[in-house]
């Protein structure tokens, strides 16, 4: 049963447990970074994974998407970026209608959105620095930063600065498959930062990490987003993370939004009831 029908986006609370108040004001909240209307997707006929999803995310907001396995969280994120083509509905991302974009414009838009995956998805045989440089691929036309050895100096320095921001500049030369799970996820975040993103999308970014590494990664996210004033949408099964690190929580069940409320008004027990 839905605890509350999809409500209008809530204003972020002043102080969330485990995080400092956001310094980036929500003055531009009237221009949502993401607007989703009537989104539908089925992989099998008659079995909707997303069944008419409507929500919007204001600039500077951190939104947690929660729900049981198969609720449609990952599909929703992928449909927003057209990594999976939705069957119906509209998505406006950073003010642009996703359905109307040709391949080149789509790539350009994706370049402004940092996507962090559950399993970090780094290229294992390449160095941490090269993986971070890949974040600049969409905006580098002539000098392609395919490998750190052939990247322009300015990009190389920027990538090192991104690694520094996640505390891994000393591991720049190490191969990605020699890093721990937490370090790999931090490199993936550095790659997202290298994109100079306006929005960060993270699909269960700490699901494959131990609790302490997971906490570390979420704190890193929260700090970066607070400092940069970015918008963030993340999915998580860790309900305490959803409450601690998001301004707003959206819950999905069988492809339908069953809760959309300010994180400050929620507790773990309330969210856990959604999984029953």
């Amino acid at each position, binding site marked *: 049963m839905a605890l509350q029908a999809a409500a209008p986006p809530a204003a972020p609370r002043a102080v969330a447990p485990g995080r400092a108040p956001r310094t980036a004001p929500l003055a531009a909240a009237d221009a949502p970074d993401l607007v989703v209307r009537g989104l539908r997707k089925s992989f099998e006929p008659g079995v909707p994974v997303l069944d008419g999803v409507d929500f919007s995310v204001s600039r500077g907001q951190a939104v947690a998407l929660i729900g049981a396995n198969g609720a449609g969280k990952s599909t929703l994120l992928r449909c927003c970026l057209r990594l999976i083509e939705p069957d119906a509905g509209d998505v406006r991302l950073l003010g642009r209608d996703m359905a109307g974009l040709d391949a080149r414009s789509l*790539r350009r838009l994706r370049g402004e959105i940092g996507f962090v995956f559950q399993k970090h998805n780094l290229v294992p045989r390449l160095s941490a620095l090269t993986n971070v440089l890949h974040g600049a691929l969409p905006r580098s036309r002539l000098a392609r930063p395919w490998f750190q050895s052939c990247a322009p100096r300015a990009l190389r320095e920027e990538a090192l600065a991104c690694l520094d921001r996640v505390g891994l500049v000393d591991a720049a030369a190490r191969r990605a498959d020699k890093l721990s799970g937490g370090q790999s996820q931090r490199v993936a975040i550095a790659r997202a930062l290298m*994109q100079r993103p306006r929005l960060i999308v993270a699909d269960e970014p700490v699901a494959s990490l131990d609790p302490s590494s997971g906490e570390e990664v979420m704190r890193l996210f929260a700090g970066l987003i607070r400092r940069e004033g970015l918008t963030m949408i993340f999915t998580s099964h860790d309900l305490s993370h959803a409450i601690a690190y998001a301004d707003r929580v959206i819950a999905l069940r069988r492809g339908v939004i069953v809760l959309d409320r300010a994180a400050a008004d929620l507790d773990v027990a309330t969210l856990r009831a959604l999984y029953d």
Partner: protein
Amino acid sequence: MTDRASPAGPPRFERPSLGAFAAYLAIALFFVYSLHGTGVSLGDFFGGFPQMGRLIGEMLPPSTARLDAVGRALLETFQMAFVGTVVGVLISVPVAVLATRHLTPHPALYHAARALIAFFRTVPDLVWALLFVVSVGLGPFAGTLALVVDKIGFCGRFFAEAMEEADRGPQEALSAIGASKLSLVVCAVIPAALPSFVNTALFSLEKATRSSVILGLVGAGGIGIELKVAMDLFNYDEAATIILAIFALVVAVERASDVLRRRIL
């Protein structure tokens, strides 16, 4: 302890269906027919032993009279194998990208690339050598071209399979951040498939070294022609030198590729 009888379990052998039985029988009959068709004869086999003994006797000791010519021919053989492999591998990479289902720019290009690879692979290198001898003339260039075509068929298939099996996670990540397909191939697919590429390329070099010996028999350069002439003129001691030289070259290439494989992978 219990007195319960142990369960019978499944039968050790399943009784074949009538169709399967007929298929087994047909295969066995065709094998017997093929033995007859190829003239296999144990009598001839054992009867040939004294002849083989005489041949080996005439081969020993191997002649050292034409060592310099044999050395030059051996070097040319390896040069054909090396150039044929390097050029073939370099051409195979883009062909294999086109022949990889999720990387090809268009389904028609996928089918065309697959057909080309299958054609190059199924026609033996000796046949390619015959064709190139006619088109570019006798000599090592014809043999090298034959090896290039053979490597495209061989490496193209294995490179494409390696790229299809490469972990899709990093590819999805680069797609999600807006990387072009070319960047995706260079940054995510090739690094993931690199161990397989190296393995296949080194195996190709070994195979090309063995092939380049044979190509000489049709006039496509290399040491094969030296061997044929020595055998035709009954210079078996010189033939023995050539066979030993070929053996040394093949073993050296295999050992070198083993060392490279261990270092790179």
